[in-house]
């Protein structure tokens, strides 16, 4: 709603502390969604080296994968994707009107599960880079 004057601390400051589960879920889902689209565009850009010929492609991918930073980012991407998927599933259930009473619990569950999956996958992702 439009603000006709500055309510100062009342509206901008510290409000995030008062967010509830559903709001956090919304914020995280948004954030992860954006990261994923961003990645989609970069990903296609990188893969486009395939149009420059087989070697360029292989070298680019290998070169990138050799960088530790890329591996770390990949883990981040995995986290983002896993959360987005799990919370996406949660949202799909909400859309179907299933388990609405447990909406906060299912959000926490998505968080915890994402964490677990990411931790479990770290070895696979970073192997060979360090």
């Amino acid at each position, binding site marked *: 709603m439009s603000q006709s004057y500055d309510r100062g601390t009342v509206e901008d400051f510290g409000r995030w502390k008062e967010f509830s589960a559903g709001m956090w879920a919304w914020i995280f889902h*948004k954030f992860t*969604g*954006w990261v*994923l*689209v961003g990645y*989609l*565009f970069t990903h*296609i*850009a990188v*893969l*486009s080296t*395939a*149009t420059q010929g*087989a*070697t360029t*492609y*292989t070298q680019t*991918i*290998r070169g990138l*994968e*050799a960088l530790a930073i890329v591996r770390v980012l*990949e883990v981040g991407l*995995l986290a983002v*994707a896993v959360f987005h*998927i799990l919370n*996406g*599933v949660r*949202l*799909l259930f909400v*859309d179907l009107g299933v388990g609405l009473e447990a909406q906060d619990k299912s959000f926490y569950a998505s968080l915890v599960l994402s964490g677990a999956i990411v931790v479990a*996958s770290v070895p*696979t*992702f970073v*192997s*060979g*880079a360090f």
Partner: protein
Amino acid sequence: MAEHYSSFNRGNTRWFLQRITAVFLIGVLAFHFMLLHFVNHAAEITFLGTQARMSQVGYFGTMIAFLVTATFHGVNGVYNALINQGLEGTQKQAVKWVLVVASLVLVAQGSRTALYMAGIIA
């Protein structure tokens, strides 16, 4: 507020497609991750490997579908998020067309790359 309706409601369709694509993406994205990070480690990707996979019609088709749905899902999501922030009028139109063009470019470039990968064009 409630004066103007059209019988074909875009909000409705887009909302529905967002969910349908999401359902599709759950499967494909999981498959994609599994295949390229666990079965074949990303670091061991070569053009040849890619070409081998891409030459299979089923895989090729899946990847194109993946590309299209992900693009729709992602771009539509971004568009929604922007509208939720109260984007109106020309701004909204501008954003809409930028996003439409971006997705078309993305899908075109993606498909072209896929064709290269499959060795159909070289």
